[in-house]
């Protein structure tokens, strides 16, 4: 019998997961790449759905070059059998089993059957999910998340509107707006709650990141060509419409964080894409007992979590975009390979990636403080009859009552007393909004099951199969 190569399960095939898989597979490790999508790339490298009339990919030139290299590298490893790609796997739990791991996943779109893979180590590259804040009218059809709109436009799928407003805060809005425009939607306004002054103060940080600067400039130029009105320090306070969104009310944000009196204006649109940045996906890490730093998985210089045998990279360890994810994934893959093959990890080998990581973490910390939080007074715009938890149809008024009259002082108690966050999404969508309306800290719930699982599957999960 030949010597068995150690197996690393990489969960998530976005930039971090792909970089990690390539780094580990080149260094003597058998990689099983588990991902929920039909093809690799994640949200960032999402490709147009193939078929007649398929749209051209929206990637910028440097993104395209990186993607081509990742794809080519992956193909070589796939052919050589060093990487197995398990697509359409929705991981619901990673189980620790006497020093090894079993990754349990539900199969395909139906998610009724389970499959399991055994591995010697696990690398979590689970990405992020979108932060959404409620406002009157946010549940109308035609109001979508910024990331959702981007997924549709990148995937070449039809958009639920022709005249769009993009609103919220953070660096995602610009590419979302240009992506919508490229997909044929007329983007009439880009509404950013952050102030341009705060942004300009970060110019030195921008200057150290020329690629980012170029990227931003390209996006901005594309928008200007399309005559989009760009408003900073503004916010959408209400969406109007009977059966779907027909217009939005936009106001300037005053110095006190409230809408500036008299600044309201109506903008007619049939698509509103809103987003306030991303939050790290940490469900699997928490199920494994990994320690968090705030909302992110805590990792050391080698991207190791505090649970032996578990690495994490990319947005799950802190929001920082694709380039940071690539660097972290590369480091995590090399560290995991070294430790699994019994050689000492050599940080000099990944010095370039480590420098990129340092630079981008600094950059995104600055970006975070530039965009900052949404205006502190935004919850005041949420009327009592606004539904804040859509799954359980809990209104802002019910949340306020739980706080004022029933003694709820934290997100968990608000959930227990109102059911906000107990529904299908398990709080992923509504937690930031509910926390804001309740006036308490955003402490995401522990979600021990990362996805809803049929009881029949839980009762008898599939036995792990060795990778083919």
């Amino acid at each position, binding site marked *: 019998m030949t010597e068995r190569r150690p197996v690393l399960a990489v969960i998530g095939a976005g930039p971090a997961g792909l970089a990690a898989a390539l780094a580990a597979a080149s260094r003597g490790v058998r990689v099983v790449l588990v991902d929920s999508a039909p093809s690799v790339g994640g949200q960032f490298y999402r490709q147009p759905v193939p078929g007649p009339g398929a749209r051209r990919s929206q990637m910028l030139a440097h993104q395209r070059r990186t993607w081509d290299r990742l794809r080519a590298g992956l193909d070589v490893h796939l052919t050589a059998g060093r990487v197995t790609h398990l697509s359409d796997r929705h991981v619901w739990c990673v189980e620790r089993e006497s020093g090894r791991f079993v990754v349990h996943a539900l199969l395909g779109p139906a998610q009724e059957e389970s499959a399991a893979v055994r591995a010697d180590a696990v690398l979590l590259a689970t990405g992020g999910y979108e932060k959404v804040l409620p406002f009157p009218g946010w549940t109308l059809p035609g109001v979508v998340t910024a990331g959702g709109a981007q997924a549709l436009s990148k995937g070449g799928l039809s958009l639920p509107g022709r005249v769009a407003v993009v609103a919220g805060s953070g660096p995602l809005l610009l590419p979302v707006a240009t992506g919508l425009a490229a997909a044929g939607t007329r983007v009439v306004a880009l509404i950013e709650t952050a102030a341009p002054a705060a942004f300009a103060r970060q110019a030195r940080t921008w200057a150290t990141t020329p690629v980012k600067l170029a990227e931003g400039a390209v996006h901005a130029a594309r928008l200007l060509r399309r005559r989009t009105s760009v408003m900073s320090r503004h916010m959408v306070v209400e969406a109007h419409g009977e059966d779907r969104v027909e217009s939005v009310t936009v106001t300037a944000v005053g110095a006190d964080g409230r809408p500036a009196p008299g600044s309201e204006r109506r903008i007619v649109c049939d698509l509103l894409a809103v987003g306030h940045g991303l939050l790290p996906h940490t469900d699997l890490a928490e199920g494994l007992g990994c320690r968090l730093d705030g909302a992110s998985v805590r990792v050391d210089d080698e991207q190791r979590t505090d649970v032996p045998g578990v690495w994490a990279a990319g947005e799950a360890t802190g929001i920082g975009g694709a380039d940071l994810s690539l660097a972290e994934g590369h480091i995590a893959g090399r560290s995991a390979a070294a430790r699994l093959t019994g050689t000492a990890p050599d940080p000099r080998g990944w010095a370039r990636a480590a420098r990129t990581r340092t630079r981008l973490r600094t950059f995104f910390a600055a970006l975070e403080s530039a965009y900052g939080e949404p205006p502190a007074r935004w919850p005041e715009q949420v009327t009592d009859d606004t539904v804040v938890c859509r799954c359980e149809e809990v209104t802002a008024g019910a949340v306020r009552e739980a706080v004022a009259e*029933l003694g709820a002082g934290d997100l968990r108690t608000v959930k227990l007393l109102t059911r906000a966050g107990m529904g299908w999404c398990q709080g992923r969508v509504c937690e930031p909004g509910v926390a804001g309306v309740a006036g308490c800290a955003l402490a995401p719930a522990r979600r021990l099951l990362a996805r809803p699982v049929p009881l029949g599957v839980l009762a008898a999960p599939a036995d792990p199969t060795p990778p083919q």
Partner: protein
Amino acid sequence: MVVGAGTVGAACALYAARAGLEVILVDRGPVAGGTTGAGEGNLLVSDKEPGPELRLALLSLRLWQELARDGLARAFEYEAKGGLVVASTPDALASLTDLAAGQRAAGVDAVPVDAHELRDLEPHLAAGLAGGMLYPQDAQVMPALAAAHLVRASGARLETGRTVTRILRGPDGAVRGVRTDRGDLRAPAVVNAAGTWGGDVAALAGVALPVLPRRGFVLVTEPLPPRVRHKVYAADYVADVASDSAALQTSPVVEGTAAGPVLVGASRERVGFDRSFSLPAVRALAAGATRLFPFLEHVRAMRAYAGFRPYMPDHLPAVGPDPRVPGLFHACGHEGAGIGLATGTGLLIAQCLAGGSPELDLSPLRPDRFDDPGHPDRHTEEAAPWIR
């Protein structure tokens, strides 16, 4: 002064206030932040053997019914749904019948159900069961809402987010109040309703109270139209509740809720305060539930959560004055029955506080019973993790 804003503390506050006392309710977390927030809200007589716990359960049930009649039923989702205990084998049915005979003598309604009648009560129950017992008195509340509304009804001064760091005592040794991380609170009587953490609070007064955590997982399914009418569980649940084993035990308890999801309890294991996910525990719960209700196989569990039952070595709570510290009262250690036993506990404590004699004999629940060298459970305790 009641320490602990779970359901037991809330009930103590309510009945003490009704007895004319001024009440302060203090908790280091929010209302319902401990085991109350992780429970199913069982108000059960069916799972209790005749004895002091059953007497407390019957008193409590009567008080819950009164509160529901007084207009709180909707606020805390009170449902007098009844419990159905099913036996899969003739042997299990025989011991269930024996248990029910004793319970009946103690005042419990227990109605035998033949195998062929089971599906009239629960149409989706599995085939081939030997029979069962219907307990019409068993009921359910939503525990966090119950705690919050009892606190509100009590009118007590609520001090959440405030950690008790010391029990203050005078030169005569009597209680004078508590020290917290945000100043002292004065009171001539302190009620320890800190649940699983009751041993820590007792230690602040210099006395030992062996409360241990017994972990339980609960599974919550997607919302369904009503299909499970009663609280349905297998006869071996009673044996598990009374067991001393530290190892994982699971016997399924399946019930619908007013909000739609089906709850599946209840695993029991003694692993300290370990919150990490245990797939074996959850797997066993799911297996047990689908054996009772095969349709659940295709129903999705949306979440699993863990809680820590406050468990005492003889499975009885500590209720009443602590003779070792004048002015200190205990109302904790109710294991998995804290919601069901809360109202009776609150009333008995209030009767003690008001200087009267409680309407139930509290001697089996004496907080200092483990100091007695002759106590049968004194030598079977495990090492004392509650002393840090």
